[in-house]
């Protein structure tokens, strides 16, 4: 069970701020593959991974980051604060 969060246009494309996912995905990339299959919106959100950043338990993580023990994965475009 992983809590998945979406921000900005990933939120808009998936139509979700968050969802709880039953998964055995070993890495962020594996999780992305599973999420893509959930809906057209999900597929669109993950259509260009170069534009997507991920955080595992609030730490920035690459696509190859392991998910063992992870409780929360967030997906978002590069941040634009300040």
């Amino acid at each position, binding site marked *: 069970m992983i809590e998945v969060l979406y921000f900005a246009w990933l939120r808009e494309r998936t139509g979700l701020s968050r969802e709880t996912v039953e998964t055995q995905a070993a890495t962020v990339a594996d999780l992305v593959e599973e999420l893509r299959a959930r809906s057209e919106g999900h597929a669109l959100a993950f259509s260009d991974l170069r534009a997507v950043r991920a955080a595992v338990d*609030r730490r920035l993580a690459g696509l190859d980051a392991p998910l063992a023990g992870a409780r929360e994965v967030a997906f978002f475009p590069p941040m634009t*604060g300040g």
Partner: protein
Amino acid sequence: MEVELREAPFDPAAELAAFAAPGAGAVVTFTGVVRGDDGVERLEIEHWPGATEEAIAAMVQEARARFALSAVRVVHRHGTLQAGEPIMMVLAAAPHRRAAFEAADFLMDWLKSRAPFWKKAHRAGSAAWVEARSEDEAALSRWGDGRGPASTVS
């Protein structure tokens, strides 16, 4: 309170007036403002409740560790902002000017690219997410090993 995340507008002059920094010889402030050029009417700023505050607090802690500061404060808005309104402000006070300048500069660089905010610009009849600028990402490397403040979304 060193970090304030808020939806309501704030007044940079009032922030400067209230910024107490006993013993400081130098006070640097940075204020970011919604530019009205390019037809932008308003900005919508989305953030990650909880994580945003943690990320900014970690940046402030890192700034305190790196620079000899007397006082520091970050104010950042979220929600809907009109053109011309202040978005955020960094205030840094130090005995000497170099530390105050560098702390403000450091915090701005990290806030731009590592605090979980996302801006959507609304123009007449259209809206678009503001894209991150490669210069902003590149600016982070100015601060050494490229590692960020050691906490949350970093």
